[in-house]
Every structure is written in C-alpha cells, then in structure tokens.
C-alpha cells in the first residue's frame, strides 16, 4: 500500500510539473495540404482566439517572440489543438514536447484531412451574445462566444456537429444569410428548429425537428437556455 501511495505521489508530482511555452511547431502530413498559405490554429478548443498564421509554408516553428502572433502560454505536453485550413480542417491532436533554438516548443503533428468543410456565418438581430460549440469525434468541445455576428470556420458537417446556444432567442437568426428564425414564428423555447439548412451541398431539411441534418447526421442544433 505504501509503495502504491509513493508511486502515486511520484506520478502526481511528475504530472504536475508540466512546462509551459509560447512556441509551437506545426507539422502537417500529407501532400494534399501543400498549397496552404493561411491557417488558423485552435488551441485548447478556444476558437474565439484562434491564431491566424500567414505564410504557413515558410517555416515550421512559430513563437510570439519578436512577432505579433498571440500565442498564449500552453503546456508543452498534452495541449489539444486543431487547424482550420480553408475548406478543410484537421482532427485534434495533443502536443509533444521538444526544444528548438533554446526554446521549449509544443509540437503538433496533424494529418491533412481531405474531407470538405464549410464556413458557417451566423447573424442575429438584434445583435445578442451567443456561443457556438463544435463537436468532432476525437476532439474536446471547441467553442467561441460572439455577439451579433460570428463565422465558425471550416465546419466538417458530415462528421461534426455545430451547436448554437442563446441566452434569449433573437428576433432574427440567419445562418449563411439564410433565415432560420424570423420574428413571430412559433418556436419551441427549449430547442429551436432550423427551418432551412445553410447553403451547404447535400443538406437535407428536417422540418419537424429542431435540427438540421446532413446525410442523416445531426449537424446544426440550436438551444435556447
């Protein structure tokens, strides 16, 4: 028993000794993603503060040192992240620790996924605060808070679900400029229907539920709390 407790203490002390850094190395495996210029890096599911990396192919290690990249301090080991590639996205991976040019670095190795993804633009009137949450198998929740207008970049609808959460239902809600909620429409207060899907190829309407389904999968849901 004492040995087990000693091992547990050692494990906990080692686990708690995570090191932090504001430098990341990004590797994107696969040839289909070789023509990228700008990508968004989402750290720890915080899509609201996604880091825009221009000239992505020019180098592999990115740091806030001497640049205006707003990379926060993250654990070098085990920090989850994913990329938005402009029409595609990656799955989530955890960082591995490494060191480059005297700097501790969180290394992310992504696999280029050729499945298509679409931007989803959300507008409310009047402009009210809302939150969206993205769910992709293998990823923790990725979310953002906005007021009035938001664009969820590169949603992979065939396997990813986008949830919208409102404090109060807006008079008007448009997704990709298409009316989803209009004033005077009789709506369930708990779970609001999407009447018309956003302009996404292959989308099917599910008029009697409050969910948009594409290829049989629930992809866009709205909740009013």
């Amino acid at each position: 028993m004492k040995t087990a407790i000693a091992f547990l203490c050692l494990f906990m002390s080692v686990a708690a000794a995570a090191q932090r850094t504001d430098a990341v190395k990004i590797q994107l495996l696969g040839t289909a993603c070789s023509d990228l210029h700008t990508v968004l890096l989402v750290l720890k599911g915080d899509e609201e503060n996604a880091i825009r990396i221009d000239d992505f192919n020019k180098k592999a290690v990115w740091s806030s040192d001497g640049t205006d990249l707003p990379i926060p301090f993250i654990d070098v080991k085990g920090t989850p992240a994913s990329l938005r590639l402009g029409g595609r996205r990656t799955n989530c991976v955890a960082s591995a620790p490494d060191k480059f040019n005297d700097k501790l670095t969180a290394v992310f190795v992504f696999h280029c996924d050729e499945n298509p993804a679409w931007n989803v633009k959300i507008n409310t009137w009047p402009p009210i605060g809302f939150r969206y949450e993205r769910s992709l198998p293998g990823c923790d929740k990725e979310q953002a808070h906005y007021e009035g207008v938001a664009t969820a970049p590169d949603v992979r609808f065939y396997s990813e679900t986008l949830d919208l959460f409102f404090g109060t239902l807006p008079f008007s809600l448009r997704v990709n400029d298409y009316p989803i909620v209009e004033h005077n429409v009789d709506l369930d207060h708990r779970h609001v229907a999407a009447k018309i899907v956003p302009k996404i190829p292959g989308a099917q309407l599910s008029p009697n539920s409050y969910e948009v389904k594409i290829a049989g999968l629930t992809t866009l849901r709205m909740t009013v709390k």
Partner: protein
Amino acid sequence: MPRGASHCRDCKSYQGRQKYFQYLVMIVGFLGTIFGVIAAGWSGVIYILDRDSHTEFKVSGSDDRRIFLGVANSGRQSSTLTDFRLIVNEQTGKEITLELRDADQPLGKNVIAGGGSITVGLSRVLNETLPVWRRGRQLTSKEQQRFFANPHWVDLTFTLEVDVVESDDPCTLCNRPRSHHTRTQRFPAGRIQTFVRKALGGQILGGQI
C-alpha cells in the same frame, strides 16, 4: 683627525650626520632582502594556491530564451561546469533546471581553461530529458503562475546554483568528501526580466507581454 673633517681615514668611518648614512644603507639593504624573501615566498604560496582551478560566475542578464553568465577561472588548471539550477525566492527543494544553450554545447563552453573567463548562455531543460527523480523538483506550471502572474514578481530574488568540478574534485579524503563544488549567486529577478517574461510566462504591470 682634523677638527671638522667628515671622514676618518684611519677608522674608515664618516663623522657627523653622514655617519648614520652607512647604517641607513645597511637597514635598507636588510629590509630589501627581507622584502625580497617575503615576495618570493608569497609568489610561491600564490603559485601553489592557484595550482588548482577556482571558478566563479556572475549573472549578467538575459534575452528571451537564455540567461547569460560571465564565468572566470582564477586557477591554472581547467574546471568544468556540470549543472545549473535556478531557484526562485529561496524555495528549498524546488528548482528550474537549466542547461548550456545550443550554440555553446558543441564548443564545449562548459570547460573553463585555467586563467580564462568566458560568457555562457543557459536555457531551460525539457523535463522529459531529466531523470525521473528530478522531474518532481521542477517548479510546476501552477507554482510558476503563482510567482510570475503576480505583476510584482520583479521583487523576487533568484539564486543560481552552478555545480563545478574543480581540478581538486573529486575529493574523497577531505573532511567532507565531495564530487564537485557548488557556486551560487543571488540576484534580483529584474536582472533577467526578459527571460522571466518570455520563458517563464511572467507578467508585468499592465498585462502580459
């Protein structure tokens, strides 16, 4: 001898005040000899004392990834810097282990030649490259945040400990057998503020840099 003569030809001695001159010459000569003997002895002692290496360092500053030290070896034999630990606010049992920066490692800059002085840079070590027993001694991210998220971290005191294998190490027959010497320097955190901000996540008044 005539009255008023200054020199006695029979007894070969000066008269009047001049007679003291010869004594003065003798005394100066004697003192000079003594001084010469002492100086030679002192040089010998210094030579013997400086036979072994004696290494000291001073933290000069930092950039965003490295802490810089000026290291001097006043002995005649070389010494080797083997381990570097940064201790925050004299917390016992907790440290931030450092290592020689990338550029200094292939040059073997941890070896300080006799009579030499150099500048070396130290950067953080990946925990995964440390022995398991030592990982638990590293300052955790929570502890770092406790120290450095406080905008007044510049009031902290750092201690840098450097293990040095001097030329008389290891000493197994000493009163306290040792494998190395540990040299330390305490200095204000502000001296390496760039390193604290960028490598340890320190914040300053007005927000994170």
